[in-house]
């Protein structure tokens, strides 16, 4: 391939990237933002897939088979918990205006400058190998593209000819243009995000293309590849069916490492947390990002197998199989496309990581020391804003050069994946202080300091230093007599711990000291007020609305505050912040007025976005007179706010309850009025019913009294009527009394276990006189087994008597007998009383049970009953949890059916009751 094409393509590609980023920044200003959608967000998270994924995975897979996957399974598992953990981090960062991992740790542990600085150092030193990895991959792919099939010239050439240096310079330029334009790090870098999302698409498409090409064009599908590899004894190691490749410990260690990496790599923190527009985007990203990882890893194994088969013993670095395969086939355009894919993967990482690190270094390392300088006022004449921006640019270049230096130092000894894993272990050191800090209020600054520095030192000693210095010079590693007895310090078997691979070994010991130090020291130290405040705010971020939290008891004038803000944010920005505040509070603020506590707080947050939390704290304390609040003070204010919220919620609930009660009262009142009306009706009906017999008694009495000459037999007849009517009156009064007793419910009743057959027997004997008087027969059908019931025996007897006497009343003797049937149904007992009367019309079936209801169209002039008998029946049945209804039996009369629930079980004691 012509050299000019290979050299020109990446430049053209970077040009395209510039254009995209520039366009996205323009869109951001016109408020049609591209980043406010979950797909761009997800693609930007895919910056996780670097040259390591693109080139290194194939290299790793060709040696160890499946073990490369741990780096992607870890993030998949971590993504399951994103909704719980990452959302909390995002919320905290938004509220506190945190823009980097170092600032997060510093802010959580009492806005500690020392911790912020330490975290920054760890991040910079830890990520340097990672940046070097990308440079190495880009430069190696250059060489392959230019020189294939010859192996790359051994050793790096002169500086000027080194492509990696040029790439690094170009990337620095890009990062400076799109990463360091604003001072406020909380402002989103939309251009960068969109460019990175675009690169994620390019690398995915490139890798899938080469995967399909290798699997189905060069070979006949994955099955064919597996067969061929299995046939070669030398390559069978890759299929390694006997267990987990690389051992189980390594598998677990790598999975855990990558879980930590996806959350705490500075570039991941930048795209997932700082650049997050909407927490809700996490819902999509949590499955779409793992899906992206799944797709980009689908063809790693096929390509690795194909490389092994194709090149065999030829001197081709497995890391370069992706490129070497299409080149060996003479597909130069395809190779160029793959090369661009790898270039995308590498540059995306370098750009985001260097920007994230530059912000971290300037906010948490350089700013705090700058603010301590005595000559600050002199420096300020240059303009602090300009100073910060230029500082960040300088730092960016330095970081990239640091990566380049590491790349030159380690050179060719390490495979891509091994270099990346060194960075992963460094980054994993952030996991304990952040995760413990988010869920345990007791984690203290001293603990975090001890843990973090312990873990970092272990990492330096066991991984970083051996990677840059010839390990044979290290204690315990050499056979030199001088180091005899220092075997305990062997960096690959620290304290004599052998049998682990370097990564698991370093991870174990660094976590041992990191977590151990953090927990142990936290348990035995006292937190300062500031630490306790921050701990409470971080841990309870979802419970409190601490936008109202005030940390300052002292006073400052609005003018001072504005001046301070203007030093870092510029005059216009500062004035806008003050104006915005006074507008939202509806108050006019003048420069010499005392600033409200909330405004002081707001100013501190704005400063945090620009210069980090620790520095912001220092700057605020330089103008605010008086003491900062104590922990108790802050908590009191917070609790007062949450109490006010709680009160208003309680009030709301009370008013809802009141409304409910009013409605209930209204309904009750309505019911009472109705009852009152019913009672009046009842009284008037009773009086009416009483008057009818009374009238006839009185009439006949007067006749007898006035006319002495009434014939004897007529006198007899009249007296008979009087007696009969009096009887009717008595009966009526008895029934009214009965009804009122029954209406009162279970008051003086006795609940007992009864047999319905006994009840029927009693009722039949009580009514036998009635039957014989009217010459009506009664036919009973009773079951042979007991019919257990729960109820009051007197009432139930009354029920049956009422039904029987009712039946007698309406039965014409010549038409046949009254039938009484008792039968046991599943779970209830049924009693049927059938008469031989005229029957009851359908529309009366419900109304017969109402009080004083008498069937009107009866041929017989006078109603035969009081109209209360059936009402009493219904009441009794209701109180016995049963049902009563009436049916018309064909060719017979009416049938009254009573259904009562059957009693039973251990509590039913028929025998005991009888005894």
């Amino acid at each position, binding site marked *: 391939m012509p050299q000019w094409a290979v050299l020109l393509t990446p430049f053209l590609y970077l040009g395209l990237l510039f254009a995209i980023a520039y366009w996205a920044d323009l869109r951001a200003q016109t408020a049609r933002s591209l980043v406010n959608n979950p797909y761009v967000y997800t693609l930007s998270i895919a910056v996780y897939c670097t040259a390591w994924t693109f080139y290194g995975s194939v290299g790793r897979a060709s040696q160890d088979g*499946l073990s490369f*996957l741990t780096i992607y*399974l870890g993030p*998949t*598992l971590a*993504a*399951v*918990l994103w*909704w*719980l*953990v990452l*959302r*909390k981090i995002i919320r905290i960062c938004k509220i506190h205006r945190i823009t980097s991992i170092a600032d997060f740790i510093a802010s959580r542990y009492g806005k500690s400058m020392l911790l912020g600085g330490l975290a920054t150092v760890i991040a910079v030193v830890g990520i340097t190998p990672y940046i070097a990895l990308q440079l190495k991959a880009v430069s190696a792919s250059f060489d392959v593209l230019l020189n294939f099939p010859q192996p790359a010239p051994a050793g790096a050439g002169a500086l000027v000819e080194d492509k990696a240096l040029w790439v690094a310079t170009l990337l620095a330029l890009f990062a400076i243009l799109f990463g360091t334009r604003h001072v406020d790090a909380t402002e989103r870098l939309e251009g960068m995000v969109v460019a990175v999302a675009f690169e994620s698409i390019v690398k995915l498409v490139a890798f899938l293309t080469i995967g399909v090409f290798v699997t189905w064009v060069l070979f006949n*599908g*994955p*099955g*064919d590849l*597996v*067969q061929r590899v299995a046939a070669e004894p030398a390559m069978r190691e890759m*299929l390694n*069916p*006997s*267990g*987990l490749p690389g051992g*189980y410990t390594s*598998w*677990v260690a790598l*999975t855990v490492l990558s879980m930590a990496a996806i959350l705490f790599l500075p570039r991941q923190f930048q795209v997932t947390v700082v650049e997050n527009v909407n*927490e*809700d985007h*996490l*819902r*999509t990203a*949590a*499955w*779409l990002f*793992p*899906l992206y990882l*799944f797709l980009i890893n*689908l063809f790693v*194994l096929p390509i690795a197998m194909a490389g092994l088969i194709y090149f065999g013993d030829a001197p081709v670095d497995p890391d370069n199989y992706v490129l070497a395969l299409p080149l060996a086939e003479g597909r130069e355009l395809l190779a160029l496309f793959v090369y661009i894919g790898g270039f995308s993967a590498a540059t995306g990482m370098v750009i985001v990581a260097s920007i994230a690190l530059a912000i971290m270094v300037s906010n948490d390392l350089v700013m705090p020391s700058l603010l301590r300088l005595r000559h600050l006022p002199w420096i300020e004449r240059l303009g602090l804003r300009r100073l910060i921006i230029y500082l960040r640019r300088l730092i960016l270049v330095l970081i990239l050069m640091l990566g380049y230096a590491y790349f030159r130092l380690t050179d060719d000894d390490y495979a891509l994946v091994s270099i990346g894993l060194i960075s992963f272990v460094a980054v994993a050191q952030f996991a304990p202080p952040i995760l413990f800090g988010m869920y345990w209020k007791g984690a203290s600054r001293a603990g975090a300091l001890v843990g973090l520095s312990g873990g970092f030192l272990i990492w330096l000693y066991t991984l970083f230093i051996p990677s840059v210095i010839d390990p044979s010079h290290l204690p315990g590693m050499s056979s030199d007599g001088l180091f005899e007895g220092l075997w305990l310090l062997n960096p690959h078997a620290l304290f004599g711990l052998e049998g682990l691979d370097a990564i698991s070994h370093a991870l174990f010991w660094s976590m041992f000291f990191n977590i151990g130090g953090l927990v142990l020291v936290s348990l035995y130290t006292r937190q300062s007020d500031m630490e306790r405040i921050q701990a409470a705010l971080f841990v*309870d*971020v*979802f*419970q409190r609305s601490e936008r109202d939290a005030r940390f300052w008891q002292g006073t400052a004038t609005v003018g001072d505050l504005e001046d301070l803000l203007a030093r870092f944010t510029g005059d216009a920005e500062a004035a806008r912040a003050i104006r915005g505040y006074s507008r939202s509070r509806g108050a006019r603020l003048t420069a010499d007025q005392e600033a409200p506590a909330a405004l002081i707080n707001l100013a501190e947050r704005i400063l945090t976005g620009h210069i980090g939390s620790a520095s912001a704290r220092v700057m605020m304390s330089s103008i605010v007179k008086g003491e900062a609040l104590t922990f108790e003070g802050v908590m009191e204010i917070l609790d007062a706010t949450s109490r006010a919220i709680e009160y208003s919620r309680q009030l709301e609930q009370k008013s809802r309850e009141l409304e409910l009660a009013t409605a209930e009262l209204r309904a009750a009142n309505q019911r009472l009025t109705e009852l009152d009306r019913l009672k009046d009706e009842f009284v008037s009906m009773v009086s009416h019913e009483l008057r009818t017999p009374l009238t006839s008694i009185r009439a006949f009495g007067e006749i007898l009294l006035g006319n002495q000459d009434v014939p004897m037999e007529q006198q007899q007849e009249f007296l008979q009527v009087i007696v009969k009517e009096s009887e009717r009156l008595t009966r009526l009064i008895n029934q009214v009394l009965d009804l009122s007793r029954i209406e009162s419910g279970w008051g003086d009743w006795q609940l007992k276990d009864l047999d319905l057959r006994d009840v029927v027997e009693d009722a039949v004997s009580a009514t036998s006189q009635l039957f014989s008087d009217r010459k009506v027969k009664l036919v009973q059908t009773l079951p042979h087994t007991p019919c257990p019931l729960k109820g009051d025996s007197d009432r139930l007897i009354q029920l049956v008597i009422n039904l029987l006497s009712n039946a007698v009343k309406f039965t014409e003797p010549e038409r046949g007998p009254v039938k009484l049937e008792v039968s046991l149904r599943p779970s209830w007992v049924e009693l049927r009383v059938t008469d031989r009367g005229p029957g009851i019309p359908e529309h009366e079936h419900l109304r017969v049970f109402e009080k004083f209801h008498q069937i009107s169209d009866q041929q017989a002039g006078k109603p035969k009953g009081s109209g209360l008998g059936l009402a009493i029946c219904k009441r009794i049945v209701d109180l016995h949890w049963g049902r009563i209804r009436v049916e018309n039996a064909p060719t017979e009369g009416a049938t009254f059916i009573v259904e009562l629930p059957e009693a039973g079980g251990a509590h039913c004691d028929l025998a005991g009751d009888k005894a």
Partner: protein
Amino acid sequence: MRGGTHPRRHERLIALFVVGCLLFSYPLMHLFAGDHKVFGLPLLWVYVFLAWLAVIVATGLLLRSKSGSDGGP
């Protein structure tokens, strides 16, 4: 506020995480690490990719509907 239409989403996510960890743990992986082949591919490879896909799909299903964005974990 907290929970919304899925008051138990948090518990389910944690359970899925635990299940995911178990799927890729030694005892289960070991079950599939034999000389067997499925569609001509080593069984372990097929298992790992399928289990991976299952975890992704389950995560998507659990987070499908919008709710609980105000509640805390």
